[in-house]
């Protein structure tokens, strides 16, 4: 029997395509083939799966993909990631910063689809995410950020009624004397850059892909 071993580039392209083309059923198998062929897991993640998610994000920017598409893409990504994860190098390089982010929908609001998408995209971009869910008591954001030593808090709401909660989180950070240690990014339907300025938050993102750009800038991620 003659088994053709696929080239690394070919398998990376397949991993990327599985994510981009929403082929959540085959992503794990391709990842297994990739590992079996002896290629580096980290490349499989970054140049394969994450590349596919970035291509999907690009289509979302161009309004060819929609939120539901990105959700299925992310399923494919996570299926592949489950296989590759255990083969990743255990130790991070010396001096490497671990970017941590606390995210949630502020108290009084339960609309979390946008928040979930931002969590996925930030995770894809390399952030370690702490998702507090929806209808989150304001103090909890600050507590969690302190606990895990997060550099970023992301607040989301779709309702005007619950927007003032975002300002309260900023105020709590000031009161606790850690405002300079944590950046605050906000997003959601009724928000704007003007509101971000008004409540002294650090960044506002229009959508999930924008959130990645803003978050990286805020924490100084290359």
């Amino acid at each position: 029997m003659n088994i053709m071993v696929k080239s690394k580039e070919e398998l990376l392209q397949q991993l990327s395509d599985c994510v981009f083309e929403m082929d959540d059923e085959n992503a794990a198998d391709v990842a297994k083939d990739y590992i079996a062929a002896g290629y580096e897991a980290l490349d499989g993640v970054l140049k394969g799966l994450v590349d596919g998610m970035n291509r999907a994000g690009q289509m979302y920017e161009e309004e060819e993909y929609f939120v539901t598409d990105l959700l299925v893409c992310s399923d494919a990504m996570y299926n592949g990631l489950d296989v590759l994860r255990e083969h990743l190098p255990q130790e991070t390089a010396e001096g490497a910063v671990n970017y941590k982010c606390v995210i949630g929908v502020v108290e009084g609001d339960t609309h979390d689809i946008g928040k979930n998408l931002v969590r996925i995209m930030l995770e894809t971009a390399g952030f370690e995410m702490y998702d507090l869910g929806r209808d989150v008591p304001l103090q909890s954001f600050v507590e969690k950020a302190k606990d895990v030593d997060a550099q970023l808090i992301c607040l989301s709401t779709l309702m005007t009624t619950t927007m003032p909660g975002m300002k309260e989180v900023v105020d709590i950070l000031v009161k606790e004397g850690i405002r300079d240690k944590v950046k605050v990014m906000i997003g959601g339907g009724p928000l704007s850059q003007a509101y971000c300025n008004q409540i002294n938050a650090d960044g506002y993102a229009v959508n999930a892909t924008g959130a990645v750009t803003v978050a990286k800038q805020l924490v100084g991620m290359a």
Partner: protein
Amino acid sequence: MDSKERLLNALKGVKTDRSPCICPGGMMNMVVTALMEKADIHWPEAHTDPIKMAGLAKAVYDYGCFENYGVPFCMTIEAEQLGAVVDLGSTVYEPHVTGYALEDLSQWNKLPHLDPYSNRANVVLDAIKILKEQADKIPIIGNLSGPVSVATSLIEPVVYYKALRRRKEEAHAFMKFVTEGLISFGRAQIEAGADVIAISDPSGTGEILGPRLFEEYVVTYINQLIDGLREGNPEIPMIVHICGRMHKVYEPLNKLRADAHSFDSIVSIKESKKMLPGKTMMGNVSTFALEFADADRIRLMTQKVMAEGSDIIAPACGLGTKSSLENIQAMLNAVQGK
């Protein structure tokens, strides 16, 4: 021309002396904390007591906010009747779903049928009956949450949205079940005396679903809902509100059989009138501005929406509870030419 005749005419595209200024209720909430204080009727009690619910709906008209009555003041009743857990909120926060009824979509056929004659659904019906007795010149708007929004209150939205693509057969069976429940609640509201039905489906946006799924699920099931309500009530006018940008979904939107459309304030009335010929447009003074801008600005924004050709003047997505009475009254005064 009285408020009821004016609104019913406007909804059917018949000439009126001027545009009506309304806010339906339901997702498009029209009650603010300042009004609760004036009327001395408060949330969350008004969500569970028909006399208080009717009293607060009446106060909206009496204190010069809007030219209609409308109930309820939330979009959680349908989901609660189907098994979701609801936190009734406070004087500021609206009721919201805190626990889903389903872990997995495959369990949908174990859900109870929506009973319109019990619990908070019945509170709404009783409130409509009380309002009906008190006025025949003021239109009563009954509100329903749209099928996709109810569905995403029953099951984790990410699971649901993925199922729309991956498990179509189950997803359609579930949507049909939800829609049938909504038809029974809507019919009961009409029977109790609602003059208009407003359907709000904020979770069924084109931005989330894209045009293909929007047509397959939002248009299909809102139309089933509309048809179900018109059976036996062929004249009942219907308003449909959908959130978010619309430019990708005008084509499927044209297939909706609603009388009037209501959109977010980011949607231009001028553009939507062009893209949806023959439809009545309602809206769309910015909800954000109504809460955070001043009365002068609201007057200008209202005049702009009127100039763009909105047929029924209304806040784009209802009101935030901290909006001032002054701002709301500025909107009504601008419409009334005061």
